[in-house]
């Protein structure tokens, strides 16, 4: 195998490897059924050992993890609660060394301000203030999208979702589809 391919292969996560929790209060369920007993909760940034999708419901994944009180949990979580990406350090440490989670970062205001003043000055210097206005319009459009809307859209398309308690949620196993 060429060196480049080997390097990319090393990046891939396989069952038995590590995935991360991306959603606050991720429910760990006893069975791959959203109505089954909740064994515990996991929090964003926490790592879990990934055992792969349930054969009967590809959107429920078996994991092993540890909750914030140190209790070991082994059960099933929705695929939408898992991410292959370890959270960027900007969420894990502040200048004072204390951990900060994504929600705290968002609520600090740092993640919600509009186009930076320096960029607006740059647009004016380059005589493209109209593009700065349009970029701000794009920012507003992206900001208008809610987590609920993303979950509804994903659910309607059969993609992964992170929520269990949406109206009309039955989370039925995906229909068997043809292999390509």
């Amino acid at each position, binding site marked *: 195998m060429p060196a480049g391919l080997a390097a990319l292969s090393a990046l891939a996560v396989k069952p038995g490897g590590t995935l991360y929790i991306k959603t606050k209060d991720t429910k760990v369920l006893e069975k791959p059924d959203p109505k089954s007993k909740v064994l515990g909760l996991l929090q964003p940034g926490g790592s879990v050992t990934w055992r792969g999708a349930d054969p009967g419901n590809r959107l429920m994944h078996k994991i092993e993890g540890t909750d914030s009180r140190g209790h070991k949990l082994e059960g099933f979580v929705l695929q939408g609660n898992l991410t292959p990406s370890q959270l960027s350090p900007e969420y894990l440490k502040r200048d004072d060394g204390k951990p900060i989670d994504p929600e705290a970062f968002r609520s600090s205001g740092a993640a919600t301000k509009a186009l930076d003043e320096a960029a607006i000055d740059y647009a004016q210097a380059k005589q493209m203030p109209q593009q700065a206005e349009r970029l701000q319009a794009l*920012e507003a459009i992206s900001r208008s999208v809610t987590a609920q809307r993303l979950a509804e859209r994903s659910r309607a398309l059969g*993609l992964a979702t992170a929520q269990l308690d949406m109206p009309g949620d039955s989370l039925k196993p995906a229909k068997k589809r043809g292999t390509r």
Partner: protein
Amino acid sequence: MTRRLGLAACALLFTTCAAFKDLGRLVDKQADPFALVDNGYRCKAIQTTPVPWEEEYAVGGAVALGLAAKSGGFGVDPATAGGGARPDSSAADQLNLALAEIGLNLASYSARPEIPWTFGALNSDVANAYSAPSGYVFVTHGLLAKVENEAQLAGVLAHEIGHVTKRHALRVFAVEKSWVCLAMLKGEEVGLTRVQLGDGRTVPKIELGKMAKGKLNGFFDTVIGKIVEKGYAQADEYEADAVAAELLLAAGYDPREYQKLLRSLPEGAGVWPNHPPPKERAAKLDPVIAEMGAGFGLDQAPKVPLDPRLASARRPPAR
């Protein structure tokens, strides 16, 4: 190596070792311009120091505007841009809303889920996609006309998300910042401030907010030129592709559709000559998809058609 050779010669010939040592130092300094200036190492350290969020946001906005200038401008309803319409009031904005919904969902699985991601279309017929620091991701109308389904489009967006989460553009920015710092140490007027150390020496402190506007804009021009004109290194492209495959799997898409898109692009496709061939990029994704795909039930991934709101990309863009 030069220094080692010098010392070896010194040992063998019992000649003036000091002279060889000095020669070695001189050659080393010539290889590293930061070593030629007092305190130059402080400037070089900028290259590996994390860029603060405020700076990332400032340079991200400037790069986004630079991309718009070179790629036909943003495809936004002019009424919306003036603040006179609802975000969902036109076909152009419906298209941008659809891109935001697809992109934000992917970004939620990324290493930087909570930065203010912004997704949108550029009025260019050349098929391409771009990103800028702090979460700006854009696709051209030309690329939107090429994708066959949502998984392919999601792959393009996820690749650009990968460039942002891996901070590829910020690395370019940090290197340029270190050169500005070095110029300042050499006494050039670069519009930055110095801070005084306890021992009376002064060293440059690079803060974008303290740069004179004219100098700052020139600095932005340099950074934008590096990122927009030259593109990223080949290794960065492969890394962004690997992130794309991971995000596609996590979100529930079939990443093989992204490979299919890459394979459909002609050799030499893309704006930058240093980009690796698309078919080679597709091939390098095979091990990533094979390893992760089995655990994610890849063969049961839904076939998601293109969102109807993207249809306006196939019409002449609004300028």
